[in-house]
């Protein structure tokens, strides 16, 4: 570790320690009214925080420091959110402090777990798998039918401009309030991106490689399995990643249109109308963490599956 790096790390941990100690002071915990001294100290702390982030960002060593900088920024944002919301006594309806959100996350654990199971494990997962699977299957099926491809592709690309979530009320009418209707919306939303990407991916294999397969007298199926599907993997993973976010949005929004008494979207909309904001925020935290974890898992899976691809090897 270089000397400048060491110095920066010491500065950053010093700032964080200052912040931690500052949190113990009475005005910061909401036990006493904030004094001018407190505001001055807060201002100094803010300067320290900015300085620590700037120092950290200026480091030129490795990717890990980039991640650390972002993490440090996140920590300071949450820190000042807590500090200022408590000191200014912002009403809970407007913005609850992070500590309260954490508390709600803990105390409503079982409820939120039920919502998670209802929305993510049932609607999102099944809809995502069905939609992506069908998109893939249709793309492979019409691979040898250029007429169908030319007909479907423009229509399928157009669907990205259409608010497909709007079919939610119809899905609720057809499939009832349970998770099946949400899974149907998610299936519809994830079908087209997968179809378009897989079709694009199947065209991605290079001419040289295809001619090589041809000179080996490889059959159509063999070429598909050994060359064209592997070459399509990065495209398919891109669609799967986009679909993961789309699926969460679709399921949550579909629950705004009608749902049983559990589900993340249901929780968010009903608790928001009851002004129970800490619980709303914690439901959003659950949704956000789910989205990021799904994304990270897919990235890892892509590294395993398409380890040979230049886009994976570079990073």
């Amino acid at each position: 570790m270089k000397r400048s790096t060491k110095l920066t790390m010491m500065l950053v941990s010093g700032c964080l320690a200052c912040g931690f100690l500052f949190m113990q002071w009475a005005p910061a915990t909401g036990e006493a009214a904030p004094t001018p001294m407190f505001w001055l100290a807060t201002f100094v702390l803010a300067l320290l925080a900015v300085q620590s982030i700037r120092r950290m960002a200026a480091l030129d060593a490795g990717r890990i420091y980039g991640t650390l900088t972002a993490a440090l920024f996140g920590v300071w944002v949450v820190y000042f959110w807590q500090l200022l919301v408590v000191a200014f006594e912002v009403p809970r309806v407007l913005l609850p402090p992070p500590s309260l959100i954490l508390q709600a996350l803990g105390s409503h654990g079982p409820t939120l777990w039920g919502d998670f199971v209802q929305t993510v494990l049932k609607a999102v997962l099944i809809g995502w798998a069905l939609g992506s699977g069908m998109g893939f299957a249709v793309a492979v099926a019409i691979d040898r039918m250029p007429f169908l491809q030319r007909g479907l592709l423009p229509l399928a690309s157009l669907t990205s401009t259409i608010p497909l979530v709007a079919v939610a009320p119809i899905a609720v009418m057809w499939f009832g309030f349970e998770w099946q209707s949400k899974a149907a919306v998610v299936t519809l939303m994830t079908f087209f991106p997968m179809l378009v990407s897989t079709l694009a991916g199947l065209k991605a294999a290079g001419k040289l490689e295809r001619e090589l397969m041809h000179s080996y007298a490889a059959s159509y199926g063999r070429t598909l399995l050994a060359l064209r599907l592997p070459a399509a993997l990065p495209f398919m993973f891109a669609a799967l990643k986009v679909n993961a976010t789309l699926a969460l949005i679709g399921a949550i929004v579909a629950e705004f249109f009608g749902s049983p008494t559990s589900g993340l979207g249901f929780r968010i909309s009903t608790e928001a109308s009851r002004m129970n904001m800490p619980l709303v925020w914690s439901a959003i935290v659950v949704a956000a963490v789910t989205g990021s974890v799904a994304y990270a898992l897919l990235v890892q899976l892509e590294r395993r599956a398409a380890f040979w691809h230049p886009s994976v090897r570079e990073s």
Partner: protein
Amino acid sequence: MKPLQSAIMTDNAIKGRWAHFGRQGLPVAVMLLAVLLAWYMGTVVLNAPGAIERVLPQDGSWRWQDLLAVTMEMQRPVLPAPHQVLLDFWSGMVDWPLDSPRNLLYHVAVTAESTLWGFVMGTVLGLFLSVCIVHSRTLDRALLPWIVASQSVPVLAIAPIVLVILGSLGFAGVAPKAVIAMYLCFFPVTVAMVQGLRSPQRIETEMLHTYAATRWQALWLLRLPAALPFLFPALRVGIAAGLVGAMVAELPTGAQAGLGARLLTGSYYGNTVQIWSALVMSALLGLALTTAVAGVERLVLRHRSQA
């Protein structure tokens, strides 16, 4: 090489539009016809049980032609026939004055207004942030990862919170919807613009440096023009996302006006035909908005290549 190419090009021009139609238009037209046919078949199959139970004579004295006719004209069909949707769509636009809440175009105007406001604000915010990020290493390393990560998070879930916060601050009407549309627009614009503003090659930035160009001049003369091809695809994504945001924002606000509200009231009262015509309308609105952005793109980029 040159003459041959131009010969091929004129040949193509002479073969003209029909060849193009055969390659592009015909398959799409056939697919659309197939969808329409499947829709009609679905109408018959899905509505048949309800029709037999409620509309047709109970003693079974009906022919299949009756069944066919009845399923096409149900009051509350499971799946309305395309012509029913079209009729409702047309009467929704023509039968009432433009400022009546029964008119479909009124709802389109409401939704389009908040979408466009959000789109403009989101684009401006995204441009501003991306310029800041490109010029500040601190923001680049601290803020950009969060913006990129937020793409994998269902940001739309925050919509009810934004509505509550802005509602208790006294904002009503367009503002909350526009804010939700805005934050859905601004993510793709920021990410794409950061990429675009960085796209000029080193040699070009160095040339401007030798001309002693200031940062602003470099931004204006080099970076912004270079970023335009990155900007427009993001704008197309952004306006589509903004439309979804605006429609979702209309749901919890008491559902007074807008396409999202129309969908919701339709589902409250079981008015299937109304849901479907609102659905068709929102699809058309989405297409129109993206086409408008694409049109601006063509204008701007054509102007650029001439210059």
